[in-house]
C-alpha cells in the first residue's frame, strides 16, 4: 500500500480573544490508495479543522505547522492560487448538511459542471454531459432531466448523492467526507455509506471519513484516528482500535455506543 496522503505532526492554531489556541495538536496519519481513514471524536475535537487545514480553508488568521503531503507534494504553505488547483481537483470534500452546502440559486447541473469546467476546461455542453454522467454514477434516476433541477427539488439522501457526484467529477485522488451521513435518516445513511464504498472500490480514491459515529466508522474505515480536544488520542487499524482500545477515552467512546443487547436500566 503506497502512501497517497501523509499528514505529519499537523498543528492548527486559531486566534481567539483569549490568545492563540491549538485546535489541532500534532496530528499524524497516512492514507493509502483505495484506503479509508476514519477520524472520530466529539464536537470540537478538531476533526473538521484537520480537514479544512488540508484544503487551506481555515478561518482567517489561523496558523498551521507540520506537513501535509499529497503524492509527495507539500500542501501547507502553498499559495491560494496553487491551493485552488488542488481543491476539488486532487482533493475534494463532501460536507455534512447537503441542503445548506448546495447553493439554492443554481441547478445541481451547473454546480457540478462549474467545478469540472474550472479544473478541466472545455465547453459548457461537455461539462453538463459530465454532470449527467456523475449524477448517473451516484444513482440519481433520470439524470438527463434531474441535472436541470434545483437542490430543494431533491430529497436529503439524493442531495448528498449530488454532493458526492460533484466531489468525484474530477476524479480526485483523495476524498474528505466530513460527517456525510450525520444529517440523514439511518436507512439513507446506510445507502450513502454503501455508495461511497462502492465508488471507492471502482475509482481507487483514498478517503478520510470524519464522524462522531463509531458504528459508521467501523463499517467503512481500515484505520481509525481518535481525537479529543485537538489531541490525537489513539491511531491504529480499525480492528485494533475497536477490539482492543489502548486509551481510556476510546474505551469510553465505545462504551457510549448503545447496543441492542444492552439491558435497559430502570
Amino acid at each position, binding site marked *: 500500500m503506497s502512501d497517497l496522503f501523509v499528514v505529519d505532526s499537523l498543528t492548527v492554531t486559531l486566534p481567539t480573544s483569549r490568545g492563540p489556541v491549538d485546535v489541532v495538536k500534532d496530528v499524524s496519519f497516512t492514507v493509502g490508495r483505495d484506503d479509508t481513514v476514519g477520524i472520530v471524536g466529539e464536537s470540537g475535537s478538531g476533526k473538521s479543522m484537520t480537514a479544512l487545514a488540508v484544503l487551506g480553508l481555515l478561518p482567517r488568521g489561523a496558523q498551521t505547522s507540520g506537513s501535509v503531503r499529497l503524492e509527495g507534494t507539500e500542501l501547507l504553505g502553498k499559495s491560494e492560487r496553487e491551493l485552488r488547483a488542488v481543491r476539488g481537483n486532487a482533493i475534494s470534500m463532501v460536507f455534512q448538511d447537503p441542503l445548506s452546502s448546495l447553493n439554492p440559486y*443554481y441547478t445541481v447541473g451547473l454546480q457540478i459542471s462549474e467545478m469540472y469546467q474550472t479544473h478541466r476546461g472545455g465547453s459548457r455542453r461537455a461539462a453538463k454531459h459530465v454532470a449527467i454522467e456523475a449524477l448517473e454514477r451516484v444513482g440519481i434516476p433520470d439524470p438527463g432531466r434531474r441535472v436541470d433541477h434545483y437542490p430543494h427539488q431533491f430529497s436529503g439522501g439524493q442531495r448528498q448523492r449530488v454532493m458526492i457526484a460533484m466531489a468525484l467529477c474530477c476524479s480526485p485522488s483523495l476524498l474528505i467526507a466530513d460527517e456525510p451521513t450525520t444529517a440523514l435518516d439511518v436507512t439513507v445513511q446506510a445507502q450513502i455509506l454503501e455508495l461511497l464504498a462502492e465508488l471507492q472500490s471502482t475509482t481507487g480514491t483514498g478517503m478520510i471519513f470524519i464522524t462522531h459515529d463509531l458504528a459508521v466508522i467501523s463499517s467503512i474505515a481500515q484505520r481509525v484516528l481518535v481525537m479529543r480536544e485537538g489531541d490525537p488520542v489513539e491511531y491504529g487499524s480499525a480492528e485494533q482500535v475497536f477490539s482492543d482500545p489502548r486509551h481510556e477515552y476510546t474505551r469510553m467512546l465505545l462504551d457510549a455506543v448503545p447496543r441492542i443487547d444492552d439491558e435497559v436500566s430502570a
Partner: protein
Amino acid sequence: MTRYVLGRLGSVVLILLAVCLFTYLIFFKLSPDPAVMICGKTCTPDRINSIRDVLGLNQPILTQFWEFLRGIFAGRQYGSVHCPAPCLGYSFQTNESVWSMITARLPVSITVAVGAAVLWLLAGVIGGLVSAVKQGTWWDRTAMALALGGVSVPNYVLALLLQYVLVVKLQVLPFPSAVPFADNPVLWFESYLMTWVVLAVGYACLYARLTRSNVIDTLSENYFRTARAKGLSGSLIMRRHALRPALTPITTIFGMDFAGLLGGALITETVFGLNGIGKMAADSIAKNDQPVIMAVTLLAAFFVVIGNVVVDLLYTALDPRVRVVSS
C-alpha cells in the same frame, strides 16, 4: 405560472379598487366642502348649491364614487366643463383636468426617481460590497459610520446645504429647474444632479448597510464554503456564490422604494422648486384642492401596488425556490 400572474393581476385590481374607495371616502367626507372652496368670496348659498349640483356632490356617496370610477374610463361632464377619459377629477382652482396636470408633471418625477435610483444603487451596493469584503478594516468602519450619519440627515437639510454651497457660494451648479433633456443635455444633467444626490444619499446609506450585512451573511453560508472547496476562481465565487444570493433580497426593497418615489418626492421637489408630482401634492394640500390631492394619493398607491407585483414576479425569476411554489 400564467395562472399565478393572472391571479396577481386580479388581486391588483381589487386592491386598487379598495384604495380608490377608501381615499374617496376620506377626502370627500372628512375635508371641507369643495363647493365652498371653489365658490370664492362672493358666495351665496344658491351658488354653493349649484356648484354642488355641477360636481355631483348632492348625490349619495356611493353614486358619487361610481361616477368617479366611470369617469376614469369614460370621461365626465362637470356642467359645461368636459373632462376627457381617463378623468381623475377636475381642478376648478387651476381649471385643468387632474389627468393633464399629472401627465405634465410625471416626467419630472420619473427623471428624479430614476436618476436617484441609479445613484443610490451604484453607491449603496458597491459601498456595501467593499465594506463586506474588507470587513473590520478602517475603510469598513469609516464607510459604515458615514452611512449611519447619512441615514440620519433629513433630506431638506441636505438639500438646503448643497444648494447654499454649490449654487449660491461656489456657483458650480445652476439652480435646479426642469430643463428638458433634448434642449440642453448638460444643463439638464446639472440641474437635476443635486436633486438626485439629495434623494440618493439616504437610500444609498441604507442600501450600503443592507448589502454589507447580506454579503457577510452569505460569506458564512455553507454553500460558500463548498464553492471555495471546489477550487473555483475568486471572481466566480464572488459573483455566483456571494453576490447573487446576497443581492436578491435587495430587489424587494428596491422595488418598493423606487415605486414610492415615482409617486413624487414631496419635500425634495418642493425645496428645489421642481414641478413634479411631489410639488403638485404639496401645492394642492396648501390650497386644499381635493381632486388633485386624491389623484396624487391614488397615483402613489398605484405605483406601490404595481411595484409590489413587479417585485413578486421578478422574484420568481431570481429565486428558484419561489418559482416552484408558484407553478
